């Protein structure tokens, strides 16, 4: 790693670049306390290390900062971990110096409401708004869908800063439905009683939106990348990941 040029890497002081821990028997992986899948990611990280016959070393990131620029990851990789769990496989979303492993699970974006009478989004009156977490892949599809409709047939769409804001907008009545990442609803319902009032309905007429999730790592770590990909394939094939997700009642499926 030291001294290797990566295209357009973010600025870091020199003393971050030279020298790297030499622990060939340990897999340093980061999990993010801000991510709704945090408890599951911890188990997946340990399982990957185990599959690689490496000692697991977990690092918890992001305990006191709400959001970060993706460029900040560069420092995290230089200083802390080889692998950072919880990144979506979105084409062209990453800088050249960053890549994402094979996915270890697939998750849907869901529509959450409080109204007991609605079975799908189609049942929601057009006078109501959809609170959508801003700029997600599902949100982009919602935007395209709404724009294809005549103006009078559209729901209003309120972009929200994050999943929690979108869900709270439904609880407050600002929006009739929230379009959010399923694990966010899962985590919030486990954390706060208020969110128990929310339930998931079918997204129709919207299509189901999904995203595959893997672990981020530096692009030049090609050996690690292939090793991790093989480990995830193995954990998927032998049912380890599926059992792990089921045990946590986590709303995801392995990617076969």
């Amino acid at each position: 790693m030291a001294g290797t040029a990566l295209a357009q890497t973010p600025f870091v002081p020199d003393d971050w670049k030279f020298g790297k821990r030499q622990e060939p028997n340990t897999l340093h992986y980061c999990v993010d306390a801000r991510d709704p899948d945090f408890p599951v990611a911890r188990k997946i990280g340990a399982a990957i290390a185990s599959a690689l016959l490496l000692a697991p070393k977990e690092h918890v990131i992001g305990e006191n900062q709400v959001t970060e620029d993706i460029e900040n990851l560069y420092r995290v990789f230089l200083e802390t971990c080889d692998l950072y769990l919880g990144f979506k496989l979105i084409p062209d979303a990453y800088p050249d110096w960053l890549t994402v492993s094979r996915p270890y699970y697939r998750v849907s974006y869901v529509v959450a409401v409080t109204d007991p009478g609605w079975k799908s989004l189609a049942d929601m009156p057009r006078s109501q708004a959809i609170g959508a977490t801003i700029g997600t892949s599902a949100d982009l599809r919602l935007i395209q869908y709404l724009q294809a409709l005549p103006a009078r047939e559209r729901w209003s769409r309120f972009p929200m800063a994050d999943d929690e804001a979108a869900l709270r907008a439904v609880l407050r009545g600002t929006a009739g439905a929230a379009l959010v990442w399923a694990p966010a609803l899962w985590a919030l319902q486990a954390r706060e009683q208020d969110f128990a009032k929310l339930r998931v309905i079918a997204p129709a007429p919207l299509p189901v939106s999904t995203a595959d999730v893997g672990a981020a790592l530096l692009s030049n770590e090609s050996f690690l990348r292939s090793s991790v990909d093989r480990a995830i394939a193995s954990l998927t094939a032998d049912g380890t990941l599926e059992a792990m997700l089921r045990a946590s009642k986590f709303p995801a499926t392995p990617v076969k």
Partner: protein
Amino acid sequence: MLVKRFLKSTVLGLPLILLAGTFAQAQQPQAADPTRNITLVTDEMLRNPPASDWLMWRRTYNGWGYSPLDQINKNNVKDLQVAWSWSMTNGATETTPIVHDGVLYLFNYANKVQALNGATGELIWEYKRDLPARLVAGGGNLGTRNMAIYEDKLIVATSDAHLVALDTKTGKVVWDNTTDDWSKGWRHTSGPFVAGGMIVQGMQGCGNAQPGGCYITGHDPKTGAEKWRVHTIAHPGDPNENSWNGLPLESRFGATPWISGSYDPEQNVVFYGTGQPYPWIAEMRGTVPKKEGYENNALYSDSTLAIEPTTGKLKWYRQHLQDDTWDLDYVYERMLIDLSVNGEMRKTMVTSGKLGILEVIDRTNGQWLWHKEMVPQNVVTSIDPKSGAKTLNAAIVPKIGQPATTCPANPGARGWPATAYNPRTGTLYAPLNEFCASMTPQPLEPGQAYAGGGRAAFKFMAVPNSDGNFGRVDAIRLSDRATVWSHRQRAPSTSAVLPTGGGLVFAGDMARYFRAFDEETGKVLWQVRTNNAVNSFPITYSVNGKQYVAVATGGGSGFLRSVSQLATEIKYPESGSMLWVFALPEK
């Protein structure tokens, strides 16, 4: 002197073993400590700064960035040489030093502030902010472009969203006030100025999906306490609340005032610019398609705000780009210039945003006067000469799944490096760059916490029929709007410009050159190749009758990293920030 140095070392927490070295150093002849005789900076001094001082970001309230000092001039600039230099903390170095009574105050990356002897470069005191570890580990821009000085206080805005007043003589903290919660992304990348006895400061970091957007605040210089707040996004109850296409407040983001402002003492009005709404793509933020019964120009993004600093009253505003979907901020310096327009003297405000369109408006009411396009652009197809209303090019609006090629690209035909105005020549000097970009809207959520902002993917390219040059410094005479000269070069322009009373215009670039141009012809009269990209605000000052020119160098800024993609054969070091100070040789 000896005792003072000893105490300083102890205060700074240096190991005792180092004191021997400090002691030995003190045996050498030292210049007198100029802080001993430093005077209070008064309101009158800020209105009419001594020629020897550089008391605020653009030196004077009118934002000209001009110094009347003329000891270094066209005839002798060829002899200019390094007087002293000072290594700075490595990192983005977009700084503007302040100079008062021979003391040069310097803001380093990672929030280290130093007082140096302006004649010798000797360190007088140092303040190092104890930033939260997570903030430092996160990296990003931990610099600030400017500071303020008032009475006996140096006032700095920090990366962890504080305003701090330091004693100008000692560097000791006089007060330290939180302006917002850094953990939510709030931060300062530009500093304050003092106008009408009030500290005026813009908040930054609100592109990080902070509902309700940013704000500008007024603070009591004695305590730092907030006295007023002007939201840069129309909130409920605001006359322009209706301008966000029916979105609730929690769905309105952006309009960051990320560059410091100007002040007209005669009117008692400060002028502040704002950035674009977030996210960049209008489709994503919900301001298009326009809904019946609502406006969708997203006020007060990309606007000039005229604010009374005593009360925080918004006197008027002018939006320069409505519902910006290209990330083309209109946030940069506002220059206050009295100009003849159609035979009538007008009190004008001159500014330009990333679009590179020079815009002149009446600073008493925001009325449109005239404009001049400085670089090739394809965003605005026409401007109404009476109202200034812009017709935007619908063909290049980026849409989801549909990239668009825009000129200029989003780092801008001009970035934060400031333009300047020379009152002797009536000429404005602008650091410009010519380039375009293919802009592709992207999902914002690669990782749950690594989201927000205004993401789109960009691929930079030269303008059509380019001669291969990207960087320019242009001289534009405001009386007839003529481009008097244009210095064109391959390397992008990356520093602010500094016109002086000596008939010179100083400016720097990505290729590490710092140059002095002839103000009338643009001829390069002097140049030096520094250690790193020149990516800051050069200043000039004098101590005991001797004139100095100072400029900080260093890579790491987002602007520099963006334009470095244009001429990839031009390299600059990844590390090495430095303050260079030049002067004429002793006779």
